[in-house]
């Protein structure tokens, strides 16, 4: 048992995966000597060499396109996108090649590629460094999408994602990179594509993932002081969604609030709301409410705290839900 940051847990997970399988490669911009701008790949090139930890030319489409070729040759590339806002140049290779190669080949050609994306805001960054593009990938058939919320999941989920024969878009909550937790590397992890109740409650269900899980938990604590019992679920997997625990919880509480940083319009909350409503219509005491970014581009960092969902906005939504 040791206390590690989320960034360090990812680093350890990557290291474990590279030790376990010589076909695992890490590639991206500045992942070598620098160890990535968040140090997630720190020390890997030193220990595994330049052939397995590849500083690529500055071209995201090139990174994903060559990763496809490497995967066809039997490798398992783990591609780092330096910041969420820079995944778009690779969008074509991701949605038309990575996501479709297996389908195109009648199921023959696996694409064991992991696309690591530090996402979300809250770190006082400039434009394009605080995006939340997860819904666009979750909408793309052929991809699997997960989001990490804590160091323990980070350590295990990155290894599970690398072990997957399907392409996984792996979202890392950059504002939580420095949060710590006790990590027991011997404790058996839950399946990669499963969501989990992280706090039990009875009055309403708060659904979150990535950086918003902490916010949801803080909201639940605050609510408890006011005598309201919130159940918090960490979705963990965004595609496929693991609706089991979600439906079970909502059937119990009758109320649900979905929280994410991404724009509410067509964000993950839309899909969760639609499914919850469809699958436990009569159990709902109130419509599923959504808390997320407004329908604007991400604002200048000086006002990002007002733009981002926080404890108060979650509780406000819970109040509105309970008012039904």
């Amino acid at each position, binding site marked *: 048992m040791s206390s590690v940051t989320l960034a360090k847990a990812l680093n350890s997970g990557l290291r474990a995966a590279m030790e376990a399988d010589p076909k695992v490669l890490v590639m991206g911009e500045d992942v070598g000597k620098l160890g990535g701008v968040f140090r997630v790949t720190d020390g890997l090139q030193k220990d595994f060499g330049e052939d397995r930890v590849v500083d690529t030319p500055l*071209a995201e*489409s090139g990174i994903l*396109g060559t990763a*496809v*070729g490497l995967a066809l040759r*039997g490798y398992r590339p783990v591609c780092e996108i330096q910041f969420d806002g820079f995944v778009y140049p690779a969008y074509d290779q991701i949605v038309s090649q990575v996501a479709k190669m297996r389908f195109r*080949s*009648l199921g023959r050609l696996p694409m064991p590629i992991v696309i690591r994306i530090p996402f979300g805001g809250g770190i006082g960054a400039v434009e394009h460094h605080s995006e939340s593009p997860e819904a666009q990938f979750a909408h793309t058939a052929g991809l699997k999408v997960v989001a990490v919320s804590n160091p323990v999941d980070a350590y295990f989920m990155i290894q599970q994602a690398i072990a997957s024969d399907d392409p996984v878009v792996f979202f890392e909550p950059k504002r939580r990179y420095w949060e710590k937790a006790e990590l027991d590397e011997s404790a058996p992890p839950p399946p990669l594509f499963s969501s989990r109740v992280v706090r039990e409650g009875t009055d309403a269900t708060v659904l979150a993932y990535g950086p918003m899980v902490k916010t949801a938990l803080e909201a639940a604590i605050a609510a408890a002081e006011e005598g309201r019992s919130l159940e918090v679920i960490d979705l963990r997997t965004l595609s496929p969604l693991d609706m089991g625990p979600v439906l079970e919880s909502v059937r119990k509480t009758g109320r649900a609030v979905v929280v994410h940083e991404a724009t509410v319009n067509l964000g993950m909350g839309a899909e969760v709301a639609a499914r919850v409503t469809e699958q436990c219509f009569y159990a709902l005491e109130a419509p599923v409410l959504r808390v997320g970014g407004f329908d604007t581009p991400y604002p200048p960092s000086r006002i990002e705290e007002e733009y981002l969902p926080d404890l108060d906005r979650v509780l406000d939504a819970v109040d509105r839900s309970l008012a039904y």
Partner: protein
Amino acid sequence: MSDPDLGTDLGAVFGPTAEGAEPELVQLLTPEGELREHPEFSFDGSTEDVRGFYRDLVLTRRIDAEATALQRQGELGIWASLLGQEAAQVGSGRAMQPQDFAFPTYREHGVAWCRGVDPLRLLGLFRGVDQGGWDPRDDNFGLYTIVIGAQTLHAAGYAMGMQRDGVVGTGDPDRDAAVIAYFGDGATSQGDVNESFIFASVFNAPVVFFCQNNQWAISEPIERQTRIPLYQRALGFGFPGLRVDGNDVLACHAVTKAALQRAREGSGPTFVEAYTYRMGAHTTSDDPTRYRLSEELEHWKLKDPIARVEAYLKRGDLADGDFFRAVASEADELAAQLREGCLSMPDPHVLDIFDQVYGEPTQELQAQKEQYAAYLESFEGSHA
């Protein structure tokens, strides 16, 4: 332009040297079927090889013609004809070793033939029964790629994989391998293609970039993609580029063989521009009369890739009537088989697609499959 007051003509002094100048084109067999000397390249094959090329060229064209006919008769939704580009594809395709890997566009039927892919498998995509009916690992021939240029990055990455597998520059001819990436003149404008040049050159990956400049990207002439000869693009990325007569199978073979050899030895990428012409429409959906003149077509007819080989074989008495008759009837048989196979291609079953998306199926998708199966059954078989 000249700019006296600044005392320098940037274009002249710092511009592309070959601008304007007619680029030299590697040619070993003239349209008339005469062998030609070239200072750098020579065809090192036997007469048997040339007869083999002739057979490949004829069969490839026949496959293409049959597919076009099948489309006209409604058996294919669309077809992209390689008419006129047979020599570029057979010459380069035959230059490959078994361990090499080819990444095609949607028009490399001749390369597929050389790699040993059953022509029938090529029709699936165009008939709409599948999106890639062969296993690329069987013959080291990738799936057809429709998104222009995307496959060139796959080629660079695959070549990087070969480097990591230690099959480049070992000196063992049966071991050393390389990749050949096919693309068109229009594709050279895509960011992906240029990025593939960068990855290949920076990592010195064993890739031959084989560009069939057939003068057209659907309705757009080559001038819409470049203002200098395409092969010179490579000079901007630090590797050799050269232009070969794309209608000369001997030259295409010699040049591609040298480029592949260079890649296998660990000397990195080469850009080969096969200068040819798209004799047909872009696809069976296209109507070239809207944008190009028939004169151009007539001009290129004189450079036909098959006629010159036939002339060469006949002039030198290197093949007799029996040979030509045999190839012709083989072509007819092949075409008949292809037609028969096409008509009897089974349609896919819609329920199968749910199992082809992921290696590890998702509950959600399985549920959709079951629900849809039940739904289809509710029509007592009228749908299913």
